């Protein structure tokens, strides 16, 4: 057998398996989103409500915002649901997305050792970061082009810290998702920028606690975008749009507001209609 025939054989066998399992028939859309929405449990709460209302299953692939947008650029998702306005607008301008709609916001917090060796505690994110840098206290960065990573880099810049110069052994670029980065921070007893949702649902906290919170600048806007069918003809335009219309509708917005962990609301709906 030639390599080509082998490939064909493997391919056919696998396709038959998929068909036999009945996955091809189900009505579904694929949403590429971020780890913060998936791991905080928001989708676990939200999607069953939408599925019941519409009969459309939503399959979520949870990645960093940068990766989630790249996945959609290749046509592997119908809808993106992410949180990096600059990257989202770039995505639209390149023609990959139809329109960006704001859905909700949550906020970032700086998590760090409870003893707070850098004396970074307070409301002011920029001052907090300056103090962490001044003390050369261990800081864990996502370093994965996610929305949270992009936000972190913006805060450093706004704080007047030139990371290229200031970077040293105190600054750990981990290149990992929110959870793995939190695990690293917990074991190093380091500071880290995290979204509140992931932090609240995170269990391996070690000696870490919230150090900086409540700054207006820490608000983190989520947007939802339909992937442009003009770029990728197979995009499930009608069903994708139904999902978008629902999350910005009263019912969808209420479902978002209703999601709580330990009595604390994680995401604040703010869709404009």
């Amino acid at each position, binding site marked *: *057998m030639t390599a080509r025939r*082998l490939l064909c*054989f*493997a*391919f056919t*066998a*696998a*396709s038959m*398996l*998929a068909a036999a*399992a009945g*996955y091809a028939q189900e009505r579904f859309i*694929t949403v590429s989103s971020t*780890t913060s929405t998936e*791991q905080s449990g928001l989708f*676990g709460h939200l999607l069953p409500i939408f599925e019941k209302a519409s009969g459309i299953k939503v*399959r*979520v*692939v*949870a990645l960093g915002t940068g990766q989630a947008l790249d996945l959609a650029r*290749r*046509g*592997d998702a119908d809808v993106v649901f992410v949180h990096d306005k600059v990257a989202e607008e770039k995505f639209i301008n390149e023609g990959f997305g139809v329109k960006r709609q704001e859905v909700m916001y949550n906020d970032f917090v700086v998590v760090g050792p409870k003893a707070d060796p850098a004396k970074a505690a307070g409301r002011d994110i920029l001052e907090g970061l300056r103090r962490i840098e001044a003390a050369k206290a261990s800081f864990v960065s996502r370093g994965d082009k996610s929305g949270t990573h992009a936000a972190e880099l913006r805060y450093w810049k706004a704080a007047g810290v030139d990371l290229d110069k200031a970077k040293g052994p105190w600054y750990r670029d981990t290149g990992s*998702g*929110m*959870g*793995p980065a*939190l*695990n690293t921070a*917990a074991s190093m007893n380091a500071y880290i920028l995290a979204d509140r949702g992931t932090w609240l*649902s*995170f*269990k*391996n*906290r070690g000696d870490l606690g919230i150090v900086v919170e409540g700054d207006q600048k820490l608000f983190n806007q989520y947007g939802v975008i339909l992937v442009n069918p003009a770029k*990728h003809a*197979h995009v499930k335009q009608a069903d994708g749009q139904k999902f978008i219309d629902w999350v910005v509708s009263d019912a969808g917005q209420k479902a978002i507001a209703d999601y709580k962990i330990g009595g604390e609301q994680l995401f604040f709906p703010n869709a404009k209609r």
Partner: protein
Amino acid sequence: MPELNETLATAWQLVAGADARLADIVLLSLRVSLTATLIACVVGMPIGALLAVGRFPGRRPLIVLFNGLMGLPPVVVGLLVYLLLSRAGPLGQFGLLFTPAAMVIAQAVLVTPIVAALTRQVIADEWTEYREQLRSLGASRTRAAATLLWDGRFSLSTSALAGFGRAIAEVGAVMIVGGNIDGVTRVMTTTIALETSKGDLPLALALGFILITVVLVINAVAYAVRGWAERHWG
């Protein structure tokens, strides 16, 4: 390790509670990895046998190649299969990305070299032993390869188990091509990775114990079947 007790308790609760979602995840893991191993055996065993008995130009480099490919990094396989199956890729129109079929393809690619290389070793040893005998019977090399494959079927079950072990244990490839979608492509290893990233280490470890147990049971069953078959048809 104070987590150990909690881990064992969690593992026990999961198993004793016959958690339906856990059962689905375990079954999907088994279905994907067993199918991938089956494909790898159908493809890899003849390749291994031909490499052992054949005489053709490029045979030695091919042997080295298959031995080397045993060390294929799962993420690389995942990435390659992802690029093939992605909508922007050459096989994109089939829409297979993020389905169990994509995971089967990735694992089959990963496991085929392992099965082929281990089969080659088994058959090469037999070939040294039976070479003269097979030749005196006038068997062609293809015929000899087929005969030796059948003859060595019990030893070859270890090649298949090694392939299966690799498939069920890997996380890098299925994470990329499956997407770890809840209820669709979430398997044991991606669940463990997810729970680890949520910081729920006891649950992650408990799932790890269950995975190891499942693999052990499969190996025990295979061992018993082999012993029984050898006694009856050996």
